[in-house]
């Protein structure tokens, strides 16, 4: 999928920085980014969260949310059977209503990719065509604490097993110490390791783990760094650190992507992940994307929710809209 959109590693940095992709050039560029108005950002995010969504829009929003979900299971206790049931849920989210759309992707650990691919069978493919793709977390997820060789092997392994998308974590320790060149090189190397046998690249989502970056300025710098290094998506969090995705952080990343689009015409994806559990929250994100980047961003190759329990809540709301009565947890799967 998405071969034509994936860029070669570091190509963007070469274009922007004019050939000199040294650590100091990178540092100069990132430090030159304007600071973030934290109060304004949080106020704007809070304002976008207060929209009242009426019934017909809500029905549209719920279906669109499902189409944008990366249905995730990232537990130490995952088994092939758990992954198969996750895939079954991805393909038929609500057995009581077959008009329910499929989710965009399933997101699993690298060793579970073969099981996910096998379980998907013919339904494995581009979510833009109604199929379900396989995303794998790699690079010593969630901490990212491993040598580069291990991270790259982890990535290649998942890609070789058939993963269409790689969710990598950045080295937060290096980023916070100011070793941005190292973080940049690592993203470039992982992007390189995403090369598939057919010459294309697996879609690379770069997890910034914003809960560990401390400031909004850092989030903006890390976002731009990830984009420069060739990330196709920037993703808020692993879901293993609190706070995970928050609306202000996601808004900031969306604004960074919007600015990037204005400068270069290129469209980067955003994936908030972790802590989005209710339809109400998910709709706030939908509104924020539509208001910041426009509705054309609400497609699977430009926006995703990383979530596991969100899907069930969306299905309950969807059942309420179709049947006119409130549903309950007995009417969706136990994950």
């Amino acid at each position, binding site marked *: 999928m998405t071969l034509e959109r994936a860029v070669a590693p570091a190509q963007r940095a070469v274009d922007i920085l004019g050939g000199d992709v040294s650590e100091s050039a990178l540092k100069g560029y990132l430090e030159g980014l304007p600071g973030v108005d934290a109060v304004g950002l949080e106020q704007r995010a809070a304002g976008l969260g207060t929209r009242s969504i009426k019934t017909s829009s809500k029905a549209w929003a719920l279906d669109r949310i499902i189409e944008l979900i990366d249905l995730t299971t990232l537990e130490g206790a995952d088994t092939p059977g758990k992954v198969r049931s996750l895939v079954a849920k991805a393909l038929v989210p609500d057995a009581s209503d077959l008009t329910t759309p499929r989710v965009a992707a399933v997101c699993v650990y690298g060793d579970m990719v073969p099981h996910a691919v096998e379980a998907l069978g013919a339904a494995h493919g581009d979510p833009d065509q109604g199929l379900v793709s396989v995303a794998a977390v790699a690079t010593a997820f969630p901490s990212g604490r491993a040598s580069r060789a291990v991270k790259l092997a982890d990535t290649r392994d998942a890609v070789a097993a058939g993963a269409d998308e790689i969710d990598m974590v950045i080295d937060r320790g290096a980023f916070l110490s100011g070793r941005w060149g190292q973080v940049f090189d690592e993203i470039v190397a992982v992007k390189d390791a995403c090369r598939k046998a057919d010459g294309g690249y697996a879609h690379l989502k770069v997890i910034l783990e914003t809960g560990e970056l401390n400031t909004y300025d850092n989030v903006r710098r890390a976002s731009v760094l990830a984009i420069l290094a060739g990330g196709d998506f920037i993703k808020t969090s692993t879901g293993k650190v609190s706070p995970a995705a928050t609306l202000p952080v996601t808004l900031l990343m969306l604004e960074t992507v919007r600015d990037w689009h204005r400068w270069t015409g290129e469209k980067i994806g955003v994936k908030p992940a972790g802590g989005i559990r209710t339809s109400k929250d998910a709709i706030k994100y939908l509104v924020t994307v539509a208001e910041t980047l426009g509705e054309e961003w609400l497609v699977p190759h430009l926006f995703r929710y990383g979530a596991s329990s969100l899907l069930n809540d969306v299905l309950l709301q969807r059942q309420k809209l179709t049947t006119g009565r*409130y549903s*309950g947890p007995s009417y969706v799967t136990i994950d």
Partner: protein
Amino acid sequence: MTRLTVPKTYKLYLGGKFPRSESGRTYEVATPAGEFLANASLASRKDARDAVVAARGATGGWAGATAYNRGQVLYRVAEVLEGRHAQFVDEIVAQEGVSRAAATAQVDEAIDRWVWYAGWCDKYAQVAGNANPVAGPYFNISAPEPTGVVAVIAPQDSSLLGLVSAVAPALVTGNTVVVVASERFPLSAISLGEVLATSDVPGGVVNVLTGSPAEIAPWLASHQDVDALDLVGAGELDWPALEQAAAESVTRVSWPEQGPDAATPSIERIRAFTETKTVWHTKSLL
């Protein structure tokens, strides 16, 4: 010296908290003579939805507590009610326009019923359960289990006694309750919520909605996550329609009762919201 009056805001009791209705609506509660008494929250269907979510969340802890512990907690409610005796008498006099003697009798009876039901907590299973004789080396035991979330339309012609009589029996075996209080006399229901909130009853075990039963009841009846529906105070509503809606998700229904004897204490009221679980267990052959 004259003081400014400090009128009380009567809000809902949901999940152990006292929120206003999400709709922001209120309605005026008047004395029988038509004088303004207080503003009460006019709960919406979304408040009912939130109440069911809170009640569902509380089922595990409440049903999982030991019967002895539940009995202690419910007895504690009676103790705290006793301490607020005068407040409830005043509220009943103001709302219903009855004499102090009648109001006192009502509060006394309500407290006595709490105590009576509290006592049943660790005794009910002995009475309703059974060791069944079977032809084999097994124990075969039937025991009553709580149904889950019980939605109650409280008796409409009583401010405290009807409410207590409908809520307490459902709590005995470990159910959690969403109760729609009397529309005309809602104030005692919220004061009872304050008693519950300060007497070791976990948040969400009892949720009190005030407002129009005609508006809220259909949503509770059709709610797929409500396990039982007590229509004791729904005699004025189109209750067969409510029963029909409840049947869609196999919700247990208990019928309206009218008159001064409505919801008199009985072991039947406890039984109405239980399910019998029967288990087999091998006997030791030694």
